[in-house]
């Protein structure tokens, strides 16, 4: 297991909902929880992953995600069972769409 923590500069869009959840913990899969939090506009992320050695990729994936979605004041919690970046991005974007309360 590896525990990683990241913090990102603030974006523009405060979430409409209190929290959103996507995915399940399992081999090649992951669980994402996004929560509204008072972080002075910043976003913070904690990642617990079964696979060591991918800190640089996690940082890039999460930083791109926060920028892409323009999120502010969101806490990101991830339990990862060895998902590829493709699955991670899918889950993050699915959760973000719910958090923003965007129409389906």
């Amino acid at each position, binding site marked *: 297991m590896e525990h990683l923590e990241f913090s990102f500069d603030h974006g523009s869009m405060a979430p409409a909902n209190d929290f959103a959840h996507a995915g399940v913990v399992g081999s090649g899969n992951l669980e994402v929880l996004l929560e509204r939090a008072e972080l002075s506009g910043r976003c913070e992320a904690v990642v617990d992953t079964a696979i060591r050695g991918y800190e640089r990729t996690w940082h*890039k994936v999460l930083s791109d995600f926060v920028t892409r979605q323009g999120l502010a004041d969101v806490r990101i919690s991830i339990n990862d069972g060895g998902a*590829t*970046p*493709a699955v991670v991005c899918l889950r993050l974007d*699915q959760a973000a769409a719910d958090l923003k309360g965007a129409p*389906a």
Partner: protein
Amino acid sequence: MGDSGTAIDGAVRDWGTLRERYCARMQRGAALAKDKVVAPDDVVALLEAVIEPGDRLCIEGNNQKHADFLAECLAEVSPERVHDLHIIQSNIALAPHLDVFERGIAERLDFCYSGPQGLRLSRLVKEGRLKVGAIHTYLELYGRYFCDLTPNVSFIAADAADHEGNLYTGPNTEDTPAIVEATAFKSGILIAQVNRIVDRVPRVDVPGDWVSFVVEAPRPYYIEPIFTRDPAAITEVQILMAMMVIRGIYEKYGVARLNHGIGFDTAAIELILPTYAADLGLRGKICKYMSVNPCPTLIPAIESGFVEGIHCAGSELGMENYVSERSDVFFTGRDGSMRSNRIFCQIAGHYSDLFIGSTLQIDLEGNSSTATLSRITGFGGAPNFGSESRARRHGSESWLMAGREAHRGNGMPRGRKLVVQIVESFREGLSSTFVERLDAWKLQESFGLPLPPVMVYGDDLTHIVTEEGIANLLLCDGPEEREQAIRGVAGYTEVGMARDPEMVRRLRAKGAVSYPEDLGVDKRLATRDLLAARSIKDLVRWSGGLYDPPARFRNW
């Protein structure tokens, strides 16, 4: 006076040597046959009698059915009597196909595809016991059968024969017509292994007077269900990519006629036609005619009225009754069973609007290959399906729109076939699909090939679809934009992370790179709920019980 005795410049040349040799071979072989029928125990002796050293020999064997009994018999002949054979066949799949090289019966090989024997094949090449002429596409090798690689002897497989040698191939006709035509009409010996000898065949697929000998094999020919994909194994990332294909390519261009490669990526597309594409109002507009084997994952799209016509290269185990009961969709014989033909299917696909398939590696020019370092595999049908059809003349919405994007008003108006590769940026084991240099280059070196074994060339490719988005190479100006468009969808691979973000932004603005949000794809819908069938059992249900999956796919 027959063929011989024509005089040119005073020299007398015999113009019928092939026919004379055929008669001599037949005479030697007839001693072992009753009419045309040879007993299984006499087949090795028959082969020693009719095959001559240095012959070009073809053993029918493809993705599916194999003349496996005859292949085993060939591996048992005496290398003193039969040697220096040049094997010219599409598929190297069974151990006896390479035993003939181990035993010194054959020495040269021209082929298309190897699959599970790829590792052993590369060892034999390294040991100098097998010389590879070239790794061909199917159409290319069949073409050479009628040019400079005509078989002297061919082994084929059929369901049934009568006593006159008329053959019934059943739904798996596949390569048989190409091999038969080239062999029978250039004085070659044609030997058929059949599952049963009957008084009257259900339909004549090969006329008896083209066939030299028939043997009822001790067991039915080997056949493999290679087009069956269990919907249970389709991932949500594959569903996301399928959604992007439908919105960003099929809907955009109005793709009505196409070829799907095999794999879970295209199975995912097939399984969201009745759900996602139907909701977009695309029934009757996309995916109407396909050149593809009867993949079970097509059943929901057929049943829901999406796919109207399918021509197949071969059949698929378990689909026989379903196909037979859907003769408005599939090509079937008067006897009710399917008629397949690899050449016609390849031609139909080559001149259609789109090919989509998967690959293992893509470089920065868009060249792709499934060849990896340790094995020689080859590509089968993908290079013919997955190439621009420059000779095409008839128009279609898709072909004309792609042509406008490609040429943008410069010079003579042309159409353009869409050639799409669908890949995840990382394959299993976190190896990158996107590479600076294909393994194919090293393979060329180690096997002494004339060129690196590329499956689809970059200049034939029009789109790359990944979990990140779609690169439209038609809209790229010059190699630099092309490279950045590829990097722009290469995800978190080294190739993707080395993108120039500013240039990718510009490419996105002009539509050369599109992400799901640009295509109107809502990622929240990318769940397995979107699949019209989520298991093999669901497929059986959709088929009204007509699909009869092989035991290995039954988990209920």
